[in-house]
């Protein structure tokens, strides 16, 4: 990166500065001995040319839209198009969520993102004994396509992209979207969106569980194959680090486990479906967390793009540059927010959102100040959305592409994140891949260690959270509280029963039998799921077939 002459000069000047530092510290000690990121990565007092002298400009940095995409996928950065303002929303009944969606679209949101309630997420209907008390609490309840029609009422499916955070029952919910489009006369080639559909991180972190890892990956590969052939604008997986981080992982762990999960899916689709990597890799998408440590997050996101580009080209022999682009959504860190002094959360979220933008995200959700306590109110959501709009349209940070490139610190930290991530990736390779590593409990226990250490650091005051362990107040701040009434559960059960009475139950049985046969034969389940949801099969009925054929996975409760 630099001439020998410059490095010599820098070295001489650095010695002089270091002497001054010693003298100053002797007189005025630093406020603390060790300075670390939120992930406990030690940061030096100063970075200089010597920290990035081994970088190769062409190989390691380059230009936007060029390999290794450190500086972003888009040739024109955010000048051509801002990131997608995509607020995650879902609560109560399908009608309530539909109202929130229209509210957000009217407020300038540019993409939709669906939060489902726990029964839907786990593949249970609202009237399952396991679902008692959960209906509509953490998202919208969807049992059959009847609910889905209410959810998408007035939403132009051909023009707007919709993200659905759904994992074990992803085939069933995506089938509803596809079926709804077909019924509205919109060809599948026109619809666009994302299903999260990333089960590996469920075993690692989020724990919405259904079947064991191996068949779970098979169902995911079915969706990738179906999307590749029939729904080419759909992102069939959103390989997610968000939940891994929220479970307590460090930034490096989030980066490494997420990318290794991505590699596992790539390998499975190639092996199981016989597709060439470049047939499907352009539709793989990612989802990261943006935590409170500003530069660590920027470095993580920049490193993620470079690792993925290298992996696709060198590990999988991809020759299509669209496969090399890592496209990702980002959400600010829920776990960085505090129930105490909740208005401070606006500042945290703004900082995290800025890091996501400087890291080059394509899509962003900003948490609302009240999300630590409850589902967000309309007003709190609007502040969160405005945070993105202020960053995009007022601050000027998007005037130039990747403005932090070339910073000694940011480049050195980006390199460090990448090196440490590859160490983990290779370790998991040595274990035989991510499914095997999960079976051993490796990523789970690494995250447990990090979460425990962090909580101890918070309790001891070594790491600061304002309002938790510093600048505490006794003042009780009242914020408007959005609550989901328990009556939603009863209404949803009534609605489900009405659908059950109206539908053709013989057709339902036939459709479920077809899915069962497809599972047993190892065929792609997607076409059968689309038929099944059109016949009003419920999410649980489809998932029960999976549980019956593939077995049920139970959380082993590691700690």
């Amino acid at each position, binding site marked *: 990166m630099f001439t020998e002459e410059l490095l010599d000069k820098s070295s001489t000047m650095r010695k002089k500065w270091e002497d001054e530092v010693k003298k100053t510290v002797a007189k005025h000690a630093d406020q603390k001995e060790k300075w670390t990121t939120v992930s406990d990565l030690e940061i030096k007092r100063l970075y200089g040319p010597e920290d990035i002298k081994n970088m190769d400009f062409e190989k390691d940095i380059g230009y936007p839209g060029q390999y290794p995409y450190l500086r972003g996928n888009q040739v024109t950065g955010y000048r051509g198009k801002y990131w997608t303002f995509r607020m995650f929303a879902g609560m109560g009944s399908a009608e309530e969520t539909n109202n929130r969606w229209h509210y957000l679209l009217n407020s300038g949101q540019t993409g939709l993102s669906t939060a489902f309630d726990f029964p839907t997420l786990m593949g249970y209907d609202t009237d399952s004994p396991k679902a008692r*008390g959960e209906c509509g609490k953490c998202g919208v309840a969807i049992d059959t396509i009847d609910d889905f029609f209410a959810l998408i009422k007035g939403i132009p499916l051909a023009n707007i992209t919709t993200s659905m955070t759904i994992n074990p029952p992803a085939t069933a919910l995506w089938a509803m979207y596809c079926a709804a489009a077909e019924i509205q006369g919109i060809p599948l080639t026109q619809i666009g969106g994302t299903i999260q559909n990333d089960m590996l991180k469920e075993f690692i972190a989020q724990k919405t569980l259904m079947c064991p890892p191996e068949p779970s990956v098979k169902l995911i590969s079915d969706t990738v194959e179906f999307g590749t052939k029939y729904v080419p604008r759909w992102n069939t997986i959103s390989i997610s680090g968000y939940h891994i981080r929220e479970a307590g992982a460090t930034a490096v762990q989030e980066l490494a486990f997420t990318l290794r999960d991505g590699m596992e899916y790539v390998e499975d689709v190639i092996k199981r479906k016989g597709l060439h990597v470049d047939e499907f890799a352009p539709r793989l998408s990612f989802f990261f967390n943006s935590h409170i440590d500003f530069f660590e997050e920027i470095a993580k996101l920049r490193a993620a793009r470079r690792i993925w580009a290298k992996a696709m080209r060198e590990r999988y022999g991809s020759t299509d540059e669209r496969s090399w682009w890592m496209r990702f959504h980002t959400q600010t860190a829920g776990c960085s927010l505090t*129930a105490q002094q909740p208005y401070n959360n606006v500042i945290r979220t703004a900082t995290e959102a800025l890091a996501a933008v400087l890291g080059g995200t394509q899509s962003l959700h900003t948490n609302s100040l009240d999300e630590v306590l*409850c589902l967000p109110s309309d007003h709190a959501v609007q502040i969160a959305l405005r945070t993105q709009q202020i960053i995009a349209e007022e601050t000027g940070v998007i005037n130039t592409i990747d403005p932090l490139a070339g910073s000694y610190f940011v480049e050195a930290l980006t390199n460090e994140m990448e090196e440490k991530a590859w160490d983990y990736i290779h370790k998991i390779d040595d274990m035989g891949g991510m499914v095997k590593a999960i079976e051993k409990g490796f990523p789970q226990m690494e995250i447990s260690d990090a979460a425990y250490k962090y909580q101890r650091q918070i309790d001891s005051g070594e790491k600061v959270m304002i309002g938790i362990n510093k600048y505490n107040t006794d003042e009780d701040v009242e914020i408007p509280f959005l609550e989901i009434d*328990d009556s939603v559960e009863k209404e949803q059960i009534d609605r489900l029963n009405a659908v059950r009475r109206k539908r053709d139950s013989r057709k339902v049985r036939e459709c479920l039998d077809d899915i069962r046969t497809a599972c047993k034969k190892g065929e792609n389940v997607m076409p059968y799921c689309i038929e099944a949801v059109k016949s009003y099969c419920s999410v649980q009925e489809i998932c029960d077939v999976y549980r019956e054929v593939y077995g049920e996975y*139970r959380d082993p409760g590691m700690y």
Partner: protein
Amino acid sequence: MADRKIRILLAKPGLDGHDRGARVLARTFRDAGFEVIYTGCHQTPEQIVGAAIQEDVDMVGLSCLSGAHRYLFPAVAQQLQEQGAADITVVGGGIIPEQDMQPLYDAGLKALFTPGATLDSIVDWINENIKPRV
């Protein structure tokens, strides 16, 4: 015979998968010298009560962050009473709004730990309030 240690069942009732808090507490309790049984996620109240009785625990700790605590916590407390195990103390933790607290205490929960509770404060509460049964 040496003093029996305090035995705790930590459980995640319902469908909520947010287990960071429960897992951090499981380690904390182990390090504090308690005997810990952690059920993992997605337990029904029936399963939790069955495990509590079978494992002969002194305390059941419930963690729920989904909002379903209003149904699930009282269900566990009530079933313990019905099964003649009312002497097992039930405590809970998670995102529990102020207005939900009194009904939960009325249902038989002895303590509720919400965001900001330190690990040591929870351990101290247990040491003060839970006596290992002989």
